[in-house]
């Protein structure tokens, strides 16, 4: 087996991004994945930080925060690279680090994010006269009247209208947004015709569930060109078409660029030579296989994805390289009893600490492995859900880890 320049472990957003950046720089990249990553469960929007100007907020973070190790320059470059990759896959994204773009959620609240799929960019909503919220007959978990009622709280002066279209989706299983998007691919006219009956004008907006196809922008373009009003997609419950589109955009980019992707490949340990890792060991049903590389990027995720595990309280572990994991000590600091409060959760800070090159460090600050870079949800020291920084940390740490 040939030696790769880079092995990326993990097939989520951070792993995809790291592999894309590395291959773009002419490196021979192998991507080892176990499970499909959480993109199909995600909104597709990339949050950087919950602040009006995320770039300013990032500058003012404490020194131990992952963003401070990554640096604002890499964050900016990552955002640009991300938008280039998605644009090449005909999945246009809008946004930058210095501002936030609103998107409409599946319950009719506004959520703000830095990089959003163009199909969800609701920036112009405030300037519209009439807003149509359209639900689809048989589509589960999407309630147009609830969305309209909740949006009225943001926009009390606007007229809302709720409509229901029949796209002939009934028959068979319960219809998710993924099913509707699949069904609509190559079959867009039925939705376009239905939306035209709303008679929405140039100053109006149409809000629909995210059903405009599972690949790029084709379905949206086919429909948009026939409407006078602007059309937005909301977020939805998983499986989520905007997340699937993003996953496919990256997957196509990696495949076209010659990244070797190895599915179902669970890495169990490294081949260690002092402070260098020369390869990783994949365990299959009956034996082990070594994949060799000059550099390793660890993008295995946090608790949810198994990148960090915890069998005993106060003893979180990084299961592949046994890197020390930072966590808040003492049960009283571990969790905040108010799940949705204005304070972060202690346990969510759990993760690996690194130096500025994203090499893992121990409690004395010593580098553990010189050619290993830790990216994405593995990184500790902040509550990414509370801060709304998970996506931004994923792509910008991946970018930095891959260019080093």
């Amino acid at each position, binding site marked *: 087996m040939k030696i790769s320049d880079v092995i990326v472990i993990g097939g989520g957003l951070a792993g995809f991004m790291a592999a894309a950046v590395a291959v773009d720089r002419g490196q021979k990249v192998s991507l080892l994945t176990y499970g*499909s990553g959480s993109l199909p469960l995600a909104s597709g929007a990339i949050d950087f930080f919950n602040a009006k100007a995320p770039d300013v907020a990032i500058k003012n973070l404490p020194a131990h925060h992952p963003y401070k190790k990554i640096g604002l320059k890499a964050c900016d470059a990552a955002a640009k690279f991300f938008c280039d990759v998605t644009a090449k896959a005909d999945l246009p994204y809008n946004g930058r680090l210095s501002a936030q773009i609103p998107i409409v959620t599946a319950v009719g609240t506004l959520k703000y994010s830095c990089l959003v799929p163009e199909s969800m960019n609701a920036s112009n909503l405030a300037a519209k006269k009439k807003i149509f919220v359209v639900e689809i007959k048989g589509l589960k978990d999407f309630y147009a009247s609830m969305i309209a009622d909740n949006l009225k709280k943001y926009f009390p002066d606007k007229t809302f209208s709720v409509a229901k279209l029949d796209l002939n989706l009934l028959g068979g299983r319960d219809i998710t947004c993924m099913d509707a998007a699949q069904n609509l691919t190559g079959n867009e006219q039925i939705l376009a015709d239905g939306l035209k009956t709303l008679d929405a004008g140039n100053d109006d907006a149409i809000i629909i569930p995210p059903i405009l196809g599972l690949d790029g922008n084709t379905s949206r373009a086919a429909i948009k060109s026939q409407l006078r009003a602007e059309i937005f997609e909301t977020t939805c419950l998983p499986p989520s078409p905007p997340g699937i589109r993003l996953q496919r955009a990256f997957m196509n980019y990696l495949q076209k660029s010659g990244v070797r992707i190895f599915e179902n490949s669970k890495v169990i340990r490294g081949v260690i030579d002092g402070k260098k890792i020369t390869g990783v060991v994949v365990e299959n049903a009956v034996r082990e296989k070594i994949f060799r590389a000059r550099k390793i990027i660890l993008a295995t995720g946090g608790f949810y994805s198994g990148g960090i595990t915890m069998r005993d309280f106060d003893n979180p572990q990084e299961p592949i390289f046994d890197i020390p994991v930072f966590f808040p000590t003492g049960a009283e600091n571990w969790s905040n009893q108010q799940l949705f409060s204005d304070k972060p959760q202690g346990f969510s800070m759990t993760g690996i600490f690194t130096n500025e090159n994203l090499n893992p460090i121990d409690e004395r600050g010593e580098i553990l492995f010189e050619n290993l870079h830790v990216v994405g949800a593995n990184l500790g020291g902040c509550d990414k859900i509370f801060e709304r920084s998970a996506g931004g940390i994923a792509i910008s740490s991946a970018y930095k880890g891959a260019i080093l």
Partner: protein
Amino acid sequence: MSETTQAIFTGDRCLSCTSCMANCPVMAAIKDYRGPKLVGPAHGRMHFSQEDIEATLEFCSNCKSCDRACPSGVAVSTLNMLQRAEYYKTHPHTQAEDMIAHGERAGKMVRMMPFGATFANIGMTVGKTLNIFDKLGLAGERDMPAYALTPFKDLFSRIKQTSGGKKIVMFTGCFINDNEPQVGEAFVKVMNANGYEVLIDKGFNCCGSPLVVTGYLDEARQHADNNADRILDWKRQGIPVVTPCTSCSLMLKEEYHELFGEDKFHEAAENVYDAFEFLEILQERGEFNSDLKPLNQKLLYHVPCHLKSQAIGLPAQDILEEFGAKVQTADAGCCGISGNYGFRKDKYDISMKIGAKLFERIKRKDFDKVISDCGTCRMQIHHGSGIKPCHPIEILAAAYSIRN
């Protein structure tokens, strides 16, 4: 081992995250199927009576895309197959199901008659013209796989090998034995060139894969017991069992244990290798015979689902590339046939719809040959694109032949 990999113990790890649904090719092709999550992990554990049958269980093709998508190690497709076996405890099999599950039996009957293969092939051609297969419940659009005039196990005795050196036992698989003996011959040539005498064990049964997917679990268990005993016997003699069929190798290495859970299946599995997995191990030990003609060919590689599931990397691609071939992976997902699934009349359209992306890719014809390690994938590619693929071992065998 049992508790972590036997399928029935993996169901409780399901978080209902829907990753399997987002990656299921059958769900994408048809909306009647409720999807892997609801069938195996959910209904498999939650049904309370024998009459409580999930009606869409029949749609699972056992391609294992769900298992590979699962971030939590749930053996989703095997849970589906266990459910299917439960169903057939109280429901009769159709004649078509009996036929497609028992290819080994049909092959043996054909060989017992003088000129049996010739007559059987004429019969199948006539049968197709008269639409008999369609009436039986089989996919009338397909050619039934033609019997080779001499099965591989008979051809084998005529092959001259040098004995006395290192040995392997070849698990031929039904398709190679009955339909594509040239793959078997190529396998022997390559193993001989690498200093291995090939043995055949006529005591082996069909691996059982067609039985498992058709709900004949008790019969499959008998095959598993017999095959595992034979493999363990060879293991005691220090002789590995190697197969050029990826569905056989997956069954022997992984699925026996997932289905039936006994330790002996795992112990036997340790002695089983897929053909190119074995060759790559030789290469890593420096024992691979590199004296072959440069492979100046452009190859399009359809990686079988059942190879991806084995987590052995892409050894055929690595080896062929090392000797000069340009290998491009098709990256078009499942071919759709999934063993005998696509031979069912009521599953034919689904099977072709799943394969459509692959057929389109192949029709671009930007290669010299299509390669794939799986016999039924090769059949489906031939049927769907008109281009006949070969096993990668045939490419390697030809390169040794010219040299010698």
